[in-house]
């Protein structure tokens, strides 16, 4: 028997990064081959944007200072796309993987947990990125939306949102007891909160819905993503308050995730 190696293992970061890339490739293959996953996650954001933009895109709305609504729907559905990939899809797929034994199988292989987690997060982010590109292109080319001239605030909003919602997704997945409940429970909560948060129409500042939805992170994701698209003079593209609230939610999700994560179904 060979002596136990005690040196720092496995040739360092380079090999781990290659493993992440490889694992991400298989995650992507799995995702795009699953018609339900691809349609529900990517298809929905595109279809919603096209439907709403075609019917009312050029009307003006008082809640956003009489801007054309397209200027709100493009960031709104971009935010939705990121949330649906990083929160909804990630949480549901984690529950399914846990309950069907996929997680346990990986846990029993030598694949490092850090590599697995990185690949799962990056997978959600790649799917988000595909939607962001599609939605911005549709908004710009199809409906003449004005994209922010400085991409910085938008990129920060999307990245903070993606990370926060991914952490929340992992946290929420630990509360779902079985695979059958995962889709319905997570999706219903997700869509109800989105409805309250003004995804379908801009909420007036100070309205009852705006006050209620301010307690939940979805509202802040939408407003933080909208800020760079808000063409009114003197409005900052940086929505620091919204970014902060999202980050707090993300941190709470991460704490829950670390404390409650299970690799296998609970023992009956």
């Amino acid at each position, binding site marked *: *028997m060979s002596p*136990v*190696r005690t040196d720092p*293992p*496995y040739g360092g970061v380079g090999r781990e990064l290659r*493993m992440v890339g*490889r*694992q991400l490739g*298989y995650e992507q*293959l*799995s995702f795009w*081959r*699953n018609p339900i996953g691809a349609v529900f996650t990517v298809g929905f954001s595109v279809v919603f944007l096209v439907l709403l933009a075609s019917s009312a895109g050029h009307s003006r709305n008082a809640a956003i200072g009489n801007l054309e609504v397209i200027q709100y729907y493009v960031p709104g559905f971009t935010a939705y796309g990121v949330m649906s990939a990083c929160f909804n899809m990630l949480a549901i797929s984690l529950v399914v993987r846990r309950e*069907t*034994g*996929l997680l*346990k*199988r990986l*846990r*029993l*292989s*030598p*694949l*490092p947990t850090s590599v697995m987690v990185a690949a799962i997060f990056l997978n959600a982010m790649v799917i988000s990125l595909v939607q962001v590109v599609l939605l911005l292109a549709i908004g710009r080319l199809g409906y003449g939306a004005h994209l922010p001239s400085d991409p910085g605030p938008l990129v920060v909003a999307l990245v903070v949102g993606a990370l926060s919602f991914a952490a929340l997704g992992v946290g929420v997945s630990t509360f779902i007891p079985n695979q059958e409940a995962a889709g319905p429970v997570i999706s219903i909560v997700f869509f109800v909160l989105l409805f309250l948060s003004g995804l379908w129409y801009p909420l007036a500042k100070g309205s009852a819905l705006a006050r209620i939805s301010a307690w939940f992170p979805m509202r802040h994701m939408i407003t933080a993503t909208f800020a760079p698209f808000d063409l009114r003079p003197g409005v900052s593209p940086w929505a620091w308050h919204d970014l902060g609230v999202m980050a707090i939610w993300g941190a709470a999700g991460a704490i829950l995730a670390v404390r409650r994560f299970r*690799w*296998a179904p609970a*023992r009956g």
Partner: protein
Amino acid sequence: MAAVLVEGLSKRYGSTVALDDVGFEVAEGEVFALLGPNGAGKTTSVEILEGFLGRDRGRVQVLGLDPGERATLRRLRERMGVVLQELAVEPFLTVREVLARNAGYYPSPRDPDEIVAMVGLAEKAHARVKTLSGGQQRRLDLGLGIVGNPDLLFLDEPTTGFDPSARRDAWELVRDLTDGGVTVILTTHYMDEAEALADRVAVISRGRIVAQGTPDVLGGRDTAEARIRFRLPAGVDRASLPVSVEPGAGEVVDIRTDREVAVLRALTTWSEEEGVPLLGLTVERLTLEDVYLRLTGYQASDDGSVR
């Protein structure tokens, strides 16, 4: 050196004792079967060896490493393979893709194409996992267990759901692996599987090892009483047989004895002299299943129902 060494292993879940002072040793290249009813502690034992579960007390060494030691767990997992029941495989990847992906997790894996052929899935290599039949999925499980070229293989009910010929093929594959020096820890409900594959067997019941040994001597099977059975000849009542039998009403006489030669001589002599045939005469040792059922406390009542 032992591939697996377990001493004084104990584990509780809350107030339930799952394992109580379990000990066994598995030599390199050996096939070791862990038998026991559901809930007896088989899965808990195996999960502790795999480093999936922690333990409360006891010493455990697997391939010279402590599976409870996080720092060396990856090294251990690079050298072990696991074939577990009811663990799904990504449904939208193909057989070949899943094997190639997992091969990449190990430092010196086997060729995925070779594995595809070994487990008899060559025709399904490019089929998506979700299109496989139950038996084909189990064969893929087996392939995933060995693609990392392990020194130690955990097989949990490896042939459940296999048709008889696929079972023989799987056994043959396990024998080929062990000829190559792979150590195997097998859990199974099939006694014929344990008998066909295992060099040694341990029976676990209510968290304790109640017997261990080679399949042919387990539970004193080699020295235990033999079982002689024949049909009671017409017109003969039990009391007039030349050997003492337990009273009973059935048509079949069932004698347990450790003096089977003497009993048989008495019976056959009587049969010859009286001209009474002994129809359906059989002599058998306890089967592994008999021993197992006795050790695990199973009692069948006269009408065959479980008490």
